[in-house]
């Protein structure tokens, strides 16, 4: 159990820079989820922390100890791999004991810890089996068991659930979370699945092409995405992004043929071009006869996705920009239907078109 600090990590493979100055501090006992699209450098970051890859620049500190020059085995971490990487020639018991044995741990201690881990993970019956005699879920548990018997300073997970079926994935997600909480071990969990990220992480680190876009709690990342990239990556269906211009007095923004009220005034920003983000679930129809019908977005529905609990309607604004909105599943929506919509000011996200960064009150 320890704090893990990554500072200024740069990694290039030849000329290709895969990680560009990645810095993050993971508190003792915290679970950080690293989220990003395929190829953004998530695994590379994790492998640098594990010591399986050497950074081109930057430091990795585990428990206050600089580990840059230490072998993976000397870093006191445990890793769970996507394909589990169980030793095929060893039984489940031997797989779990291998790390401890190499550390010279006393036999009695090893036996006790393996028995404990097997009990926690429901592997007691399987201890004498070989990995090939196990199901995917069981292998996953053995991989977890191998990590926890070590009682390491930190757990590193590289998409450990992606080879499981949907149902098992939900269950293992829950188990991993519980286990990590219970043991209080610092964890770093790499995934490209946003549901996994939202549910597992104490905090999320969103990585895009080797650059940290945002590090925050899942709710905060959802509620206040720091950039257009994060806005588009978190949430399903993705956030609508429209072109807009700040109006004269800085209290409203004109986009898609509507004037939308801002949560915070932006005085002196009149005429500034912005990108306006609105989540599909935050678009509420304005009842006919409401005070200012001219303030809303007029959308004509083109096609509809029925998801059961919700219905997602995809349509176009008068100026041709696409817009999706989410409606409760019990209110039927048909193609050709027209909606007059407005978001609550608090649910409007403004981004700088050039940098893609969020525009906040008092911050540019």
């Amino acid at each position: 159990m320890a704090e893990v600090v990554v500072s200024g990590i740069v990694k290039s493979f030849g000329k290709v820079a895969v990680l560009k100055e990645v810095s993050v501090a993971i508190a003792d006992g915290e679970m950080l989820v690293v989220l990003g699209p395929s190829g953004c450098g998530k695994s590379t970051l994790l492998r640098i922390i594990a010591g399986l890859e050497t950074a081109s620049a930057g430091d990795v500190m585990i428990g206050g100890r600089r580990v840059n020059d230490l072998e993976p085995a000397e870093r006191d971490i445990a890793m769970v791999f996507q394909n589990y990487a169980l030793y095929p020639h060893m039984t489940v018991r031997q797989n779990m004991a291998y790390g401890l044995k190499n550390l010279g741990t006393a036999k009695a201690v090893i036996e006790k810890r393996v028995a404990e881990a097997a009990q926690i993970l429901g592997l007691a019956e399987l201890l004498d089996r070989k990995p090939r005699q196990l199901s995917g879920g069981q292998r996953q548990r053995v991989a977890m068991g191998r990590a926890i018997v070590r009682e390491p300073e930190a757990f590193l997970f590289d998409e450990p659930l992606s080879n499981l079926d949907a149902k098992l994935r939900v269950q293992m997600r829950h188990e991993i979370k519980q286990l990590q909480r219970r043991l209080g071990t610092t964890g770093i969990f790499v995934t490209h699945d946003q549901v996994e990220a939202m549910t597992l992480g104490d905090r999320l680190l969103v990585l895009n092409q080797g650059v940290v876009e945002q590090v925050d709690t899942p709710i905060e990342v959802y509620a206040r995405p720091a950039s257009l990239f994060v806005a588009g990556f978190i949430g399903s269906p993705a956030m609508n992004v429209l072109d807009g211009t700040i109006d004269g007095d800085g209290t409203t923004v004109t986009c898609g043929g509507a004037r939308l009220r801002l949560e915070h005034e932006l005085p002196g920003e009149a005429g500034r071009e912005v990108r306006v983000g609105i989540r599909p679930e935050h678009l509420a129809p304005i009842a006919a006869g409401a005070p200012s019908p001219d303030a809303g977005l007029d959308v004509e529905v083109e096609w509809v996705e029925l998801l059961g609990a919700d219905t997602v309607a995809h349509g176009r604004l008068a100026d041709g920009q696409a817009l999706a909105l989410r409606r409760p599943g019990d209110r039927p929506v048909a193609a050709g239907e027209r909606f007059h919509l407005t978001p609550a000011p608090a649910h409007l996200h403004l981004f700088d078109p050039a940098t893609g960064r969020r525009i906040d009150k008092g911050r540019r």
Partner: protein
Amino acid sequence: MEKRVVFRHRWLPYALLAPQLAITLVFFIWPAAQALWQSMLVQDAFGLSVRFVWFDNFTYLFGNREYLHSIRVTAVFSLGVALLGLVVALLLAAMADHAIRGAVVYKTLLIWPYAVAPAIAGVLWLFLFNPSVGIVAWWLQGIGIDWNHKISGNQAMLLVIIAAAWKQVSYNFLFFLAGMQAIPRSLIEAAAIDCAGPGKRFFTIVFPLLSPTTFFLIVVNIVYAFFDTFGIIHAVTRGGPAQATNIMVYKVFSDGFIGLNLGSSAAQSVVLMAIVVTLTVVQFRFVERRVQYG
């Protein structure tokens, strides 16, 4: 999916097999049958009379001190060749597996000896170890070892083992390297996290995972040492000094073509035939049951 080819004509499969069957019959079955027949005959020294003696040749063989000696020599030689060839190849493969860059160059360089004919390999090593002009013999002299394989039986044995193993190293190397590269990278990485020492890692993870390859190679190398090393022995020691390197396959030749004891020579080749059949059966049974990992 049906992987077998289904023939519509009844005679077509036989016709397609015929060339291979003919070759097998003419070059393998027929000589083997002849050897079997001859192994039960005794011929006088001038080749004028022939007698059928049932298994007398075999009884004589296994009571013969020289033949038993040759079996021992063969055992030492083949184990020596297999061990040396495998250990060196494993070492080279482990190093090549580490070096990602330049691995192709290593592979190419290391495969060359396999293309060298046994007799040439023998001559090459003979030259290096030549007591009067060989460079290795000269180095050995420098560290106080008096090298003369023409006198010392042990040194002669060592020399033929080295020459024979050298040729086989490349073959073993390729198999070991392929075996190592077939081990998933994440396994090696998991081991790197679980175990600090590279040596220990090798012996607890990599080597056990290579065991199917190793077993296969042991059989192949023993077969090689038994049967394909005639050229090396013939070029380097001719079975000498004092029978010290007279392995079974060479003794077949020397007894038959030099000693002109055709009956005994044929019996010896039948014994060798039995050995190669046994090894092949062992190999095939093993390959069928090949351990499935994953």
